[in-house]
């Protein structure tokens, strides 16, 4: 592994909301062109982790380096340059409902790169085709799509502008198993062909096994386990074991009332 020059390096990241401590000193390194999947229970702060790296949320403490450069506290032009490296698939898709689907996908091409509309549209429709959506979907409004279709549009929007790094927040949730596998293949292909660095979040272990070079598990605000994908079946970490086998009994306690 290229441990010397990580693409993304987090060290001791702490983020709280009021008295709620979400990230409690999180360390994580991701090498260039590596695909890392973060797993972890609902509400453990996986989405917060992604937003902290992007700078949408500001951690109270810790260091976040991209290409070796510190990125907490960027502003102005430097922050724009920082963001230009990323594509992000939001958990809730976050499509702009005032724009038709193709303009959502082509948003960055049109507004930031100022590409002409014809080329931008062609590229948007091409990317939509890669996620299994036909050109006529491009003319619809996001609110006319099913949840799974919205997710795929959001995925297309995340990768259309050839970013260096893409974050996928639950890319396959809400998709049927066949489409989920198509999306998994697409993510793998993006990483291999375009050489992007991918950080994904998923609850779907089949998907994690397929897209990850390395898997990291977030629990209690820290990464408690990380290793190559094939190692997850040979670990004796009780938290990880409980999670990947989906057992209610184990060290991870869910805050629910048992009947």
């Amino acid at each position, binding site marked *: 592994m290229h441990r010397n020059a990580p693409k993304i390096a987090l060290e001791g990241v702490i983020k709280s909301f009021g008295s709620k401590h979400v990230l409690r000193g999180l360390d994580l390194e991701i090498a260039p062109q590596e695909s890392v999947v973060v797993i972890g229970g609902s509400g453990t702060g996986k989405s917060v982790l992604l937003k902290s790296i992007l700078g949408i949320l500001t951690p109270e403490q810790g260091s976040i380096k991209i290409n070796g450069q510190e990125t907490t506290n960027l502003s102005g032009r430097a922050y724009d340059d920082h*963001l230009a490296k990323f594509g*992000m698939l939001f958990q809730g898709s*976050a499509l702009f409902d*005032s724009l038709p689907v193709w303009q959502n996908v082509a*948003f960055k091409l049109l*507004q930031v790169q100022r590409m002409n509309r014809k080329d931008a549209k062609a590229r948007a429709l091409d990317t939509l085709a890669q996620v299994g959506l036909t050109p006529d979907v491009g003319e619809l409004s996001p609110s006319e799509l099913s949840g799974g279709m919205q997710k795929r549009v959001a995925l297309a929007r995340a990768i259309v502008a050839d970013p260096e790094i893409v974050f996928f927040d639950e890319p396959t949730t809400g998709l049927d198993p066949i489409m989920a596998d198509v999306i998994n293949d697409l993510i793998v292909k993006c990483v291999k062909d375009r050489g992007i660095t991918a950080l994904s979040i998923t609850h779907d272990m089949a998907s994690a096994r397929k897209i990850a070079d390395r898997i990291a598990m977030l629990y209690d605000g820290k990464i408690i386990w990380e290793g190559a994908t094939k190692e997850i079946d040979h670990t004796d970490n009780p938290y990880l074991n409980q999670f990947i086998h989906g057992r209610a009994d184990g060290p991870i306690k869910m805050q629910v009332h048992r009947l």
Partner: protein
Amino acid sequence: MKFLALVGRTFLRFLEATGRFSLFAWYTLRHTFSLPVYWRQIGRQAVDIGYYSLPVVGLTTLFTGMALALQMNAGFSRFDAANAIPTVVALGITRELGPVMAGLMVAGRIGAAIAAELGTMRVTEQIDALVTLSVNPYKYLVVPRFLAATLLMPLLVLIGDIVGIFGGFLVSVYMLDFNASHYITQTWEYLEVHDVTSGLWKASAFGMIVALMGCYNGFNSKGGAQGVGAATTNAVVSACILILITNYLLTGILFAS
């Protein structure tokens, strides 16, 4: 002691909100005068705020002018001064009622729409998505609304003024037996440019208030549908109150002699 703590806390919260709003207004201004400019967005907002508010503003000022003429007639006829009706209607509409009524109606129509739209974009992470797509949400969302409201409110009010005076004319001529050409000469004779322009300055200030309150509340809304509802209410109520206060202050300033 508890009471004092409560007062203190409320005061601090007020200061905090004022500070945050000032910062918001400052960012908006700064981004208004820097590149890039999203013309398409500005155009879209101009149509929405300017053109589609015309019926509302027109109807409001029409009936205000009509009622004004009736009321003035009731008052002035008591001391034989019904001749002054055209002038009073024209002054009342252009200086006060045109801008204020239009401002309040636009606060209800546009302020609420802005707060609800931006609020929904906030809670569905669309604003975060804008940021990750390297588009500044102030430039893309706030500035177009701010510019459209500030620049088009005077135009709306100018049209409202004409319609309002026309309302007074209708009532005076068809119900109070005024002579039509006499009414028009009276209006022209005594109406000064300053009467109209002062109202247009007010209109611009009110447009600014509506857009800023709508954007600020929408931008800072949280907590799902309920939060968006609260943001919308806040936007409209605070804009209306600010409009009335500003109207008083501007009247003092514009007509100081």
